[in-house]
């Protein structure tokens, strides 16, 4: 049973701006200070504020979660939303997708979902007497993967490999995915029944894992008020579009990370690898993701440079899902978050003395 839902692009571009950005993928250089100019940063903040405003109309009282989701979007990462059913994981993913005027696809993962359903398949077209590629659900700017741990590992890996590479290869032909491209996957905690927990290597591909958590009592009451009538998602209109997001992503890439910050990020990763409470520490990819997420957070704060505070803010969401606790730590009922917070306290904040 596969259910593919396509949200066609809704018209009405919010802002039409002449893209000053020449190359989205261009590597930033220290001298290229124009990308993260104060005006560009202002735009980042403004767009982020619009997205966040829209989303919080649907997701009550979860500003930090929303901010983290936006940061992951701007940092070109993929988001893993993990929590018990019914706290609004899908709502979060869909609301983020809705606020951006771009192609959005939602994949409901089930045990019988096939890899070709995601990547696409070549079918023989009788008219032209040739194989014709029919793109899968992944060919969109925003892909919402619901309950990803319900699919078989085979299907999961099909999604995750294309996530990392940004392209799909079918029958020897390579197809580029859309830009910007973000996968927002939700999953239930692995203790729940009927799930195939993601392997470590695949969890590593998600930039950050966030938990929704239960709403506060006040937010829940407010939710009852607003959600009583119309479906909340229907009221959302896009506040930005894909080219704008792509431009913002370029700005975020250009945020300056000083040698001290880079050293600090590496120090944190090293500390997880050396911690006796962890069986598996952070990968180099995790280090990369951490710095990218920190850049996004810095840009969202209107800064053109990363502070240790930014790194500390993203460290737990970025690293926690990649770590595997040692047997002792599990027995003493510590969580990866606890271990990470302790590492954050312990690792000295690097300060350059040039």
């Amino acid at each position: 049973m596969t259910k593919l839902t396509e949200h066609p692009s809704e018209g009405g571009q919010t802002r039409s701006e002449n893209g000053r950005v020449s190359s989205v993928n261009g590597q930033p250089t220290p001298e290229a200070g124009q990308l993260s100019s104060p005006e560009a940063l202002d735009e980042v903040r403004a767009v982020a504020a619009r997205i966040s405003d829209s989303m919080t109309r649907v997701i009550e009282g979860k500003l930090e979660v929303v901010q983290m989701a936006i940061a992951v979007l701007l940092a070109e990462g993929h988001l893993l939303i993990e929590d018990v059913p019914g706290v609004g994981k899908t709502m979060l993913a869909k609301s983020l997708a809705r606020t951006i005027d771009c192609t959005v696809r939602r994949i409901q993962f089930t045990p019988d979902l096939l890899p070709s359903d995601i990547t696409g398949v070549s079918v023989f077209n009788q008219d032209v007497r040739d194989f014709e590629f029919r793109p899968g659900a992944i060919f969109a700017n925003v892909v919402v993967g619901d309950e990803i741990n319900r699919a078989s590992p085979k299907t999961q890996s099909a999604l995750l490999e294309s996530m990392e590479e940004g392209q799909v290869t079918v029958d020897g032909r390579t197809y580029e995915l859309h830009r910007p491209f973000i996968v927002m996957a939700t999953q239930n905690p692995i203790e729940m029944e009927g799930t195939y927990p993601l392997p470590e290597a695949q969890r590593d591909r998600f930039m950050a894992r966030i938990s929704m958590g239960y709403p506060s009592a006040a937010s829940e009451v407010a939710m009852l008020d607003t959600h009583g009538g119309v479906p909340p998602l229907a009221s959302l209109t896009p506040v930005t579009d894909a080219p704008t997001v792509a431009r913002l992503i370029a700005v975020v890439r250009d945020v300056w990370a000083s040698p001290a910050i880079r050293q600090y990020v590496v120090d944190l990763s090293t500390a997880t690898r050396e911690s006796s409470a962890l069986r598996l520490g952070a990968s180099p990819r995790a280090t990369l993701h951490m710095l990218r997420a920190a850049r996004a957070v810095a840009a969202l704060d209107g800064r053109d440079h990363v502070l240790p505070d930014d790194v500390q803010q993203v460290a737990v969401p970025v690293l926690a899902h990649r770590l595997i606790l040692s047997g002792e730590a599990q027995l003493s009922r510590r969580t990866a978050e606890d271990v990470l917070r302790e590492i954050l306290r312990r690792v000295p904040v690097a300060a350059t003395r040039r």
Partner: protein
Amino acid sequence: MRTRVPEAFLAFAATVAAVLGLTTLTTTGNWLATAVWTCLAVAVAGIGLRRLTSRGWVVLLGQVVLVGWFVIALFARSSLTFGLPGPAAIARLGDLVADVTDVLHKYAAPIPTTPGVEFLLVSAVTVLALVVDYLAVTRNAPAAAGLPLLAAFLTAAANSGSSLAPGYFLVAALVWLILISRQASGSVRRWSTTMASPRTPTTSSDHESEAMGGFGSSARQLGVVALVAAVLLPAIIPHLPTRFILDGLGRNDSAVGNGGRVGFSSTLDLTRSLQDGSLNPVFSYRTSAPGTPPPLRVVVTSDYVGGQWRTSPGAQSSQQDLTAPGLISPDVAVQDRTFAVTQNTLEAPHIAAPQPVVGADFGSTPWGADPRTGDLYVRARPDSYSVTYREVNVAPAQLRDGIPGGASGQNDPQVTGSLGVDQGSAQVVNDLVAKITAGTKTSYDAAVAIQNWFRTTGDFTYSLTLAAPAVDGAGQPVTNPITNFLLTKQGYCVQFASAMIMMARAKGIPARMAIGFLPGTFAEGGYTVRAADAHAWPELYFPGAGWLRFEPTPAGRTGSAPAYTTPTTLGNTTGPNKDPSASVTASAAPSSGVARKLGADTAAGGTISTPLSDRVRIWFTDPGHLVLLALLLGLLGSLVLPVTARLVHRRRRLRSLDAAELAEAQWDELVSRLTDLGFRPPDGGTLRDWRAHYTREAYFDDAAKASMGHVVATLERTRYARPGRAQVDVREDLRVITRAAAESRPRGLRLRAFLFPRDGLEWWSRLTNAVTGVPGRLVAPFARRLGRLGRLGRLGRSPRRRG
């Protein structure tokens, strides 16, 4: 543990070491053996009693009873009844105390060791031993025991009358330091009451000994540095004459061992010396001269400026050139005499001697003579010295007729410089000279006439109190001291001498001012000179005879005038020592009640002025000024650390090459100053964490919060933003923050933060480490080489020789 045997014996050793100096106060030191036995008794009794009880006061009481009995048994054994002290023993002790009182009244240190004195000293030492044992061992506070030990040492140092050898101090201080170090290391070892046992085998004992070694070595360094400083520093610090610091204490002449010294230079204000009623000798001397020796000159000067005599400061040469006698013609009868001074207390550089001197022996003391005047100077005060001086027996007839071949002195600046008449009094002087010397044919006769006028015919009154200023024709008070003296005819030697010099100069005779002492009082074959014997007299130059002393001050004070100034032909004197008509109204030896208004005297009188260096010295020797100076020095000293900290901060600011270094320097300064104020920095965390921490701890107001935000933002930018930013100086923000932080702190803490900034302390401790590490660094290469040699030697001996 409780008995503390090593500590008890160390306390015993410290007591004995501290009282070693007391042996210098007595003629024989055999009382010390008895005292050592009683101290030992104190220590042993303490050990035994501490084994029995842990209560400190019980131990002390037991010690007092036991050792008290021991002392009484030592000194009044025959009076004990059944081994216990009774009334007879108390009477015996009373006798001993009476003996002590008697001895102390009769003798100055060193005092003879009579049984009473021995009893006193042994009792005192025993009490000291009890106190030290109680504090250092029973109470386990050896630092407090330092005070009684110091008191004992100071008793010896203060009463011996001479300086105590540094060895006495070193021994006592060392033993005390060992006592302290033992107690300190003991208490450090007892820090943890339970022993931690590691699960895995570790070399924890090594760590412990390492840590202890660290404590011990820094303590030892401190101790050694303090000891060395205590011994070496006095060599660098200038010695102020002790009598000034003890001025108030040392007034009592009957005090035992009061050896007052007289600094002549500092009492050139002769009125003070003249009024000095003390009988303390300045020096004693013997001389081969028959009869009364001449006055003893200390300095001579011919500069009279502004109503004051000035001694020329550049005259203190190290030349030992005694050419002044060359002025005396061979025709004049001379006789060399010896003059030997003992117990000299006159402060360097001055030396009292009859002039002219032709030879001198100061032993090892460096000395020199002023080639122009013949005045002698020494580098340090010699205890005793001897000089040979030339007694000039020129005949009056020779002086009157002129000595053939005598040097006119025209080329001698000393002579030509001694002719200027004080302009302020020239009128009066010239008039008087014309009147007095009317009818005299030669300079010599004129000089004799002037002297006689002062001594006899002029109706002068010798008094230490100067008369109120006379009123001149215009009704104005006379301000010129010489004129005033000539009009009021009342004064003392300085005025007499000054006036005669001016009158002689008016007559064309070179004349100068000599200052020194009268011959003093004769007793037991020698003379003793006291401060009250200070004197001033004129010296007149006569070709062929050199500088001759005249004596215008009336005979009641000075005795007879020199023989060559009393020509029998004139007939107005009946012989030496007789001056019948000398009218002396003041008492010959001026009592201390004669004059007390010093200020008025110096204002009205022609006092002797002193060069700047002497005036500075006089200023320094005033007790009030000393206190002021001490306060000033203390104030300056307390500013050393704050100033150092400021300079350290300033240097870092100035040395910072770019914005980053400047921001880091200013941040470090801020953290350091906040830490001084008691706001400890958080452990770890980002700059924003620190900002939040300080804001929370110090209750910053909005301005300080803004400044803190600015400082942190600046530092964040320099640390983490793209390089190449403009330099931002946040000094004003720092000021706002530190002021806001200080306002929330108690006053004492703020003062401490100001006086003892950690950056200043750190700088000085680094400096100290660098300095104290120098010997180690110097020795290290040799030690390494030695070690290498040793290894090589071993290798050489080993059968498997390399290479």
